[in-house]
C-alpha cells in the first residue's frame, strides 16, 4: 500500500469518507450526463466564488457613511489584487443572475418541478429571491451614487405599499432617511442574514435534488432513460467546464472594467440620474409604461404576479408527462413573461440611449465620478468623501458657480448667453478684456445686458448724447488705453499666477496708474477714494480682479470694497448683482471666488 492509500484507509476507518464520496460521485444519472444539467452546479460553484471574494473584501471594507466609499476606492485602486477580487465579486453576482435564469428555464422546460419535485422547485424560487437580495443589498455597500440612488428609489416604491409599506421602508432603512443605519442594516443582511439563509436553503435544495435525481428529457425513450451513467466523471467535467466558461467571462469583464465600476460618493443633495441595475431595469420601465401612481402599483404588482405564478406552477401543471406540448398552456406565461422582461429591459436601455437629457446628466455624473476617484488617490479626509469633494475648488467651485452664478453670468460653457443679464466672465480682468471695456463698455459681453448699460463712457468714442455746447471730446490714445489696461490687469495678478499677457513694463503700468487716478476716479474708487465727494457709482479699481476683490464682490457687492451701496440699491441699478454671503458659507465663498477668478483669467487654481 502506498502512503496515500494508507492514510486514506486510516481516515476512512474514522470518518467513512469513502462511502460518502462514492455516494456523491457515483450518483446515477438517468439517460447519462448532459450539458442541460450544468446550471445548478455552476450556480453552487459561483456561490463559493462569491463567498470567498466576499470574505476577502470584508478584510478591507469599512461599512460606514464616511468610510464605505473610501475603503472601496482603496480596495479598487490602491490594494494589490483588490480590483480583481472586487471585480470577481461584482461580475460573479451578475453571472449568477444570468445562470439562474437559465437554470429556471431548463428546469421548467424539462418539467423538473413536477411531482415529487415541487418542494425542490419552491426552495429554488426562494434561492432566486435570495440571490436578488444579495445583489440589491451588495450594490448599496460602496455607498456610491448609483447604488445609493437605485436603492433609495426602490425603498420609496416599497413605501407606497398600502398599510405596511411605510413600516417596512422604515425597518429596512433603519429610520426615515438614508444614513448610517441604512448602510449598517444592508451590510448585516448582505454578510450575515443572507449568507446563512442561502447556505441552509442551498443545502436543502441539493439534498432534495439528490433524493429525486435528474429529470431526463421527455424525448428520451423509456429504455434510454433506464440506462444510467455515474455523476463522476462525465457530468462533473461538464459542470466544471461550464463554470470555467462563466468565470472566464467574469474575468474578462473584470479586466475590461479594471475591477467593478465605482460611481461618485453618494450625495443626497445631488441631481443624479438614478437607474437600477440591469436586472431590475424592467421594473423601472414599468414605472414609465404606467403613468403616475399606476406605475408604482405596476412596479409592485407585476413582480408579485410573476412570483405568484412561479410558486403555483407545479400545482397548475396537471399534464401527465414532462413533454412540452401538453404543458404549453401552463408554460405560456413563463415564456411570455420572459419576453416581456427582455422587452421592457431593452426598451428601457433604448429610451435612455435616445434621451439626450439623460445622456447629458450621465456624462456629468461620470465626470464627477472620475474627479472623485482621482482626488481620493491622495487620501480621503476623516469627514468622508463628500467633504473631500466639497473642499475641492476645481469641482465644487464649478458646482457653486453653476448653482449661484450661471443664471446671470456666462463663463466657458456654463450659463446661457441668450439669457445672460450680467457680463460674460470669459477673460474678465485680463488686459484684452480691459481694453475692450474701456473702448466699448456697453458691448453685449460687458454692460450691454446689465442695469449699468449707458453708465460708463467709452474712453475713445464720443458719447452719442453729446450736446453742442459740451466741451470738445478728446479720445484717449491707444497707448494710454493700453497703459490703463495693463495697469488694471496687473492689479489682479497673484504671486502664484503664471506671467499674464500684455502687462507692459513698470513705466507703462505707472503711466496707467496716473491716468486712472487722473481720469477714472471721477466715477471710480481707487484705494478707497474718489474725487467726486463719493458721488460716483463705479467700483473700486485697486486690486481689481484679485481674489479679495472677487470674493468681496460675491459676498456683498455694496461694501465699498467693490461697489458702493448706492450703486447697488438705488432704483436705477435694479437687477444689480445680489449678495451671496447669506446663501454661501464662508468656505464656499472662498471656493467659488477662487474658481471664478482662475477660470476667468485662465490661470491655474493652485493648491
Amino acid at each position, binding site marked *: 500500500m502506498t502512503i496515500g492509500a494508507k492514510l486514506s484507509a486510516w481516515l476512512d476507518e474514522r470518518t467513512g469518507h469513502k462511502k460518502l464520496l462514492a455516494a456523491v460521485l457515483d450518483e446515477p444519472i438517468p439517460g*447519462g*450526463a448532459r450539458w442541460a444539467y450544468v446550471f445548478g452546479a455552476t450556480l453552487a*460553484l459561483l456561490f463559493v*466564488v462569491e463567498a*470567498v*471574494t466576499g470574505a*476577502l473584501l470584508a*478584510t*478591507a471594507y469599512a461599512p460606514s457613511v464616511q*468610510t464605505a466609499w*473610501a*475603503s472601496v*476606492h*482603496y480596495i479598487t485602486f*490602491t*490594494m*494589490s*489584487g*483588490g480590483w*480583481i*477580487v472586487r471585480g*470577481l465579486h461584482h461580475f460573479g453576482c451578475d453571472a449568477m443572475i444570468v445562470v439562474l435564469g437559465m437554470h429556471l428555464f431548463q428546469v421548467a422546460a424539462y418539467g423538473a418541478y413536477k411531482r415529487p419535485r415541487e418542494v425542490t422547485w419552491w426552495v429554488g424560487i426562494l434561492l432566486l429571491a435570495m440571490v436578488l437580495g444579495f445583489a440589491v443589498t451588495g450594490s448599496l455597500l460602496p455607498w456610491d451614487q448609483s447604488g445609493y440612488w437605485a436603492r433609495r428609489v426602490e425603498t420609496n416604491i416599497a413605501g407606497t405599499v398600502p398599510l405596511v409599506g411605510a413600516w417596512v421602508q422604515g425597518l429596512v432603512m433603519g429610520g426615515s432617511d438614508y444614513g448610517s443605519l441604512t448602510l449598517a442594516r444592508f451590510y448585516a443582511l448582505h454578510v450575515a442574514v443572507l449568507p446563512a439563509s442561502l447556505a441552509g436553503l442551498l443545502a436543502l435544495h441539493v439534498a432534495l435534488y439528490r433524493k429525486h435525481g435528474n429529470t431526463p428529457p421527455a424525448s428520451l425513450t423509456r429504455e434510454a432513460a433506464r*440506462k444510467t*451513467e*455515474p455523476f463522476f*466523471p*462525465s457530468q*462533473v*467535467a461538464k459542470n*466544471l*467546464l461550464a*463554470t*470555467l466558461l462563466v*468565470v472566464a467571462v467574469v*474575468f474578462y469583464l473584470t479586466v475590461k472594467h479594471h475591477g467593478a465600476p465605482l460611481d461618485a460618493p453618494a450625495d443626497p443633495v445631488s441631481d443624479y440620474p438614478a437607474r437600477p441595475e440591469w436586472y431590475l431595469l424592467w421594473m423601472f420601465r414599468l414605472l414609465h409604461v404606467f403613468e403616475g401612481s399606476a406605475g408604482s402599483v405596476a412596479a409592485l404588482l407585476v413582480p408579485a404576479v410573476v412570483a405568484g405564478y412561479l410558486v403555483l406552477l407545479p400545482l397548475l401543471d396537471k399534464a401527465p408527462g414532462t413533454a412540452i406540448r401538453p404543458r404549453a398552456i401552463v408554460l405560456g406565461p413563463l415564456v411570455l413573461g420572459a419576453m416581456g422582461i427582455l422587452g421592457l429591459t431593452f426598451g428601457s436601455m433604448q429610451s435612455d440611449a435616445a434621451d439626450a437629457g439623460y445622456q447629458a446628466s450621465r456624462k456629468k455624473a461620470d465626470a464627477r465620478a472620475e474627479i472623485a476617484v482621482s482626488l*481620493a488617490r*491622495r*487620501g*480621503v*479626509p*476623516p469627514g468622508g468623501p463628500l467633504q473631500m469633494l466639497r473642499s475641492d475648488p476645481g469641482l465644487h467651485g464649478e458646482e457653486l458657480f453653476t448653482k449661484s452664478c450661471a443664471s446671470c453670468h456666462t463663463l466657458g460653457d456654463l450659463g446661457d448667453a441668450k439669457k445672460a443679464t450680467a457680463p460674460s466672465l470669459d477673460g474678465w480682468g485680463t488686459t484684452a478684456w480691459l481694453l475692450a471695456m474701456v473702448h466699448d463698455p456697453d458691448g453685449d459681453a460687458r454692460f450691454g445686458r446689465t442695469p449699468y448699460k449707458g453708465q460708463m463712457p467709452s474712453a475713445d468714442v464720443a458719447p452719442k448724447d453729446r450736446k453742442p455746447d459740451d466741451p470738445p471730446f478728446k479720445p484717449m490714445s491707444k497707448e494710454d488705453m493700453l497703459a490703463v489696461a495693463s495697469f488694471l490687469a496687473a492689479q489682479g495678478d497673484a504671486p502664484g499666477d503664471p506671467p499674464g499677457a500684455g502687462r507692459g513694463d513698470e513705466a507703462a503700468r505707472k503711466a496707467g496708474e496716473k491716468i486712472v487716478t487722473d481720469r477714472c476716479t471721477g466715477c471710480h474708487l481707487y484705494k478707497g477714494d474718489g474725487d467726486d465727494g463719493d458721488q460716483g457709482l463705479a467700483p473700486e479699481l485697486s486690486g481689481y480682479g484679485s481674489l479679495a476683490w472677487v470674493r468681496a464682490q460675491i459676498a456683498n457687492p455694496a461694501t465699498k470694497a467693490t461697489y458702493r451701496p448706492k450703486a447697488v440699491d438705488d432704483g436705477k441699478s435694479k437687477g444689480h448683482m445680489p449678495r451671496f454671503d447669506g446663501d454661501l458659507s464662508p468656505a464656499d465663498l472662498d471656493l467659488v471666488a477662487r474658481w471664478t477668478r482662475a477660470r476667468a483669467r485662465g490661470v491655474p487654481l493652485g493648491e
Partner: protein
Amino acid sequence: MADAKEPGRRDALRTLIGAGGAALGCAVVVPGLVFVVGPARGSGGGGRWVRTVKLDALREGEPKRVSIVADERDAWTLTKDVELGAAWLVRRGDRVFAWSATCPHLGCAIRAGDGAGEGGFSCPCHASTFAGDGKRGEGPSPRDMDALATKVEEGFVVVDFRKYRTGTPEKVEIG
C-alpha cells in the same frame, strides 16, 4: 454508458477535472492571497521630514521637547496636521541634535532631567536614564535614545521623524 467504462477516457476526464478544478481554485485563491498578503507586508519607509520650531527658539545645550505634527495616512484616510509624536531637540552651535521622545525600553515618554549627568534625560516609567547625548545610563533601557536626523531650513529645525521597535537592543524601524 459504454464510453465511460473505457478506462482511458475515464482517466483523461479525471485529469481534465483535476486541471479544471485547479484552474478555478487558482482564479480565486491567487488574487485573494495577493490581496490579503499585500497590506501585511507593510509599505516601509516611515521616515519623513517634519518642520518643527525655529532654530532661534532653541537655547544652547538646553533640551526642548517639540511635537511632530504632520499629515497622517491610515489606509484610505488622510488626516491633516496630526500630532504623530514628539522629539527632544538640543542645539550645539549651529547643529541641532534630535532624539525620539519615545523610550526604547517600553515606549513611555522620555522627559528632560534626572538623567545621567548634566542635561540628560530620564524615563518616568522604569527609571532608565540617558546622558545629554542620548547615551544609555542606568536602568532597563536596552539601547541609547533613538537619534533622528535633522537639518535647518529657512530658519526652522526640520526633523526626519521615524518610529522604532521598543524593547530590542538594535534600532529597528517600524514601517
